[in-house]
């Protein structure tokens, strides 16, 4: 390849690299021509065309063309970056076409007929450029003639393929069918083609993306007003002013609303954070990551009371940061801290000797060592909940005995239902029973009537809440006997206000009569779910015996009917909630009352 001079403009790294590898516009053009394969026309990419053009024209020893190519290949990089808006692209194309036209005019002066010799690759481009060319000036129009290699230049003499007469090629000259050759005007008209017909507008290619017809089966979900509000709140979370007067509203209610929609996130949780906060409750912390829990500690350093439900993502690092970050914490209530391991528990417990409430539910890792540390460190503990703890067993109770100030004790739903033996529990009650107001030993299947006599009756003096759900060994006669004799000499426990003995299928009328006799006057909450044998008369007497009752669960008590519900509605003025799941005798006509939520009425 010859050059008039060796001056070269700046080139891109790619061009430089290609040149060093022996790939130049010339070689590309040669290859394109020898291959004789039409250029694939899929992409609307500019760059390919530029390249091709440069190649097509700079083909034979044409220094001018080479310069052009360099210019074009520089553009190659640019167009890559600014993946062009359609308008821009058009412009560059037009400019390019003009350049081409100029060059062709020169070529024409030099060598006629060169246009004809142009390679196939050039053709494709021309086809693509057609539309643009139409809008261009006469200067470009000249080049149009050159671009069609199948047609001789206008003004040339040609011999008609049919009648062999010589004729002058015009703009309207048609090619013979079958080729080769051209027809004179007369023959073209005779063959049925209208030479003056405008060429059909070339089909505009659609971008590939538009051609795809994607069917969406996704159902459109209508956003609820709550979720929209939450979006707005989350968006403006940093702008406290915009959210209006938060102080006037009940933050706890907002917290509940966010939890109900499971949309509490690290961002909008900040709404509830404050340096002055001493109490914080998040009802659904599912979406908070460990880092968010650490943020919680640093933004609320003065917390004394912390409750987090569904805090499943909390892990060791969180507990460790709380050990120092929440120095004043007195009460901790967690639901689901699965991932916290023993060392983290130990570190936290040892850093909080002032702890008064430790309530955790669902931890498979909380073990004897942690329990021991808790007993030895937090001697002032008044509330203890170890619910659904996988590793709980009798030895834990030795340490529970050490808490002399306990008022609230829950050791329910142990990982193994019979993990806690009756004797050990009685032994524990002997130590802590005196102060307890709340006792929950649900789902300890080893409990029998004996625990009531030996564990509760002699030791409990202030018990107001008793929960013994799912303790199937309890018998009707035994429980009846217990309530009948509770309050005799030597036992001075006030009547209970909250009693849950649900899912004890052996219990029935006798037990119900006895407990109503004992605690009926004070009962606020009563759960006798699953007392299938309770008789209609006993159930009916609940209404008269419990004037304070606000919540009653009579699910799966077979004898419950509309009349019993009627008695309750009429006599229990404070009733707010009544659950009657599985009570088949209740009909749709059962009496209802305003402000009483009745759940579970299922009639066919």
């Amino acid at each position, binding site marked *: 390849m010859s050059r008039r001079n060796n001056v070269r403009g700046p080139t891109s790294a790619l061009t430089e690299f290609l040149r060093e590898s022996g790939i130049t516009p010339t070689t590309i053009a040669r290859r394109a021509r020898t291959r004789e394969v039409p250029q694939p026309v899929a992409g609307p990419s500019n760059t390919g065309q530029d390249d091709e053009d440069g190649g097509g024209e700079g083909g034979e020893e044409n220094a001018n063309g080479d310069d052009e190519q360099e210019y074009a290949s520089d553009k190659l990089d640019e167009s890559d970056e600014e993946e062009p808006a359609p308008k821009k692209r058009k412009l560059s194309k037009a400019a390019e076409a003009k350049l081409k036209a100029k060059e062709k005019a020169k070529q024409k002066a030099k060598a006629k007929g060169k246009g004809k010799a142009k390679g196939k690759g050039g053709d494709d481009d021309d086809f693509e450029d057609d539309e643009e060319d139409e809008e261009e000036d006469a200067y470009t129009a000249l080049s149009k003639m050159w671009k069609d290699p199948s047609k001789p230049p206008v003004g040339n003499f040609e011999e008609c393929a049919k009648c062999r007469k010589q004729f002058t090629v015009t703009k309207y000259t048609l090619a013979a069918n079958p080729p080769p050759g051209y027809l004179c005007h007369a023959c073209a008209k005779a063959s049925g083609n209208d030479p003056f017909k405008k060429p059909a507008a070339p089909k505009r290619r659609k971008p590939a993306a538009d051609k795809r017809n994607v069917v*969406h089966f996704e159902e*459109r979900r*209508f*956003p*609820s*007003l*709550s979720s*929209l*509000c*939450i*979006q*707005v*709140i989350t*968006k*403006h979370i940093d*702008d406290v002013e*915009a*959210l*209006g007067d*938060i102080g006037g*509203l*009940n933050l706890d*209610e*907002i917290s*509940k*609303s*966010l939890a*109900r929609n499971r949309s509490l996130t690290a961002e909008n949780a900040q709404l509830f954070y404050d340096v002055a906060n001493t109490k914080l409750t998040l009802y659904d912390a599912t979406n908070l990551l460990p880092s968010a829990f650490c943020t919680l500690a640093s933004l609320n350093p003065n917390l004394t009371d912390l409750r987090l439900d569904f805090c499943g993502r909390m892990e060791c690092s969180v507990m460790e940061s709380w050990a120092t970050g929440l120095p004043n914490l007195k009460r901790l209530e967690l639901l689901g801290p699965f991932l916290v391991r023993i060392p983290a528990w130990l570190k936290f417990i040892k850093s909080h000797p002032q702890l008064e409430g430790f309530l955790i539910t669902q931890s498979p890792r909380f073990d004897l060592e942690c329990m021991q540390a808790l007993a030895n460190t937090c001697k002032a503990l008044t509330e203890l909940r170890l619910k659904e703890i996988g590793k709980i067993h009798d030895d834990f109770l030795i340490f529970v005995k050490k808490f002399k100030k306990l008022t609230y004790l829950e050791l329910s739903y142990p990982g193994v239902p019979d993990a806690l033996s009756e004797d050990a529990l009685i032994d524990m009650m002997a130590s802590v029973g005196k102060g307890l107001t709340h006792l929950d030993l649900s789902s300890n299947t080893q409990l029998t009537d004996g625990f009531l006599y030996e564990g509760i009756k002699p030791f409990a003096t202030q018990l107001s809440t008793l929960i013994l759900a799912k303790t199937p060994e309890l018998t009707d006669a035994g429980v009846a006997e217990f309530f009948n004799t509770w309050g005799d000499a030597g036992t001075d426990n006030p009547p209970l206000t909250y009693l849950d003995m649900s899912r004890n299928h052996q219990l029935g009328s006798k037990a119900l009569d006895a407990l109503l006799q004992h605690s009926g006057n004070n009962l606020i909450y009563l759960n006798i779910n699953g007392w299938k044998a309770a008789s209609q008369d006993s159930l009916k007497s609940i209404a008269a015996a419990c004037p304070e009752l606000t919540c009653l669960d009579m699910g799966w008590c077979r004898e419950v009917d509309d009349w019993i519900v009627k008695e309750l509605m009429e006599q229990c003025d404070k009733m707010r909630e009544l659950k009657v799941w599985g009570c088949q005798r209740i009909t749709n006509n059962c009496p*209802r009352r*305003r402000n009483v939520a009745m759940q579970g009425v299922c009639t066919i």
Partner: protein
Amino acid sequence: MSANQGKPSASENDWIRITSNDGFSFLVPRKVAVVSGTLKNMLSTESNFAEAASNTCPMSERGVIVEKICEYLTYKALYEKAPPKEEIPDFLERLAPEISLELLMAADYYDVPPPLP
């Protein structure tokens, strides 16, 4: 319970009056009001509530909140059954952040929209 006003109130085309606690009242078609689960229960003819008899639901919210709730109920009633191709305007831009917290609690209480069965 106030006396029933002669005719049963179950017709589909009647209007419901929703009042706010600061003296505004809004009239919406019944089919719009029942988009809210709470209002639906209030207006249920089975319940014998005063609301059902008088077709009036007092909301203990400020007028601006009640207005926005009515607006959403109408929006929802209008577009819920819209064919998939139809363009649904975004309600989000109609929510002012100033009222969003109050509105959230109200929306929660009035069960807008009710949970899926």
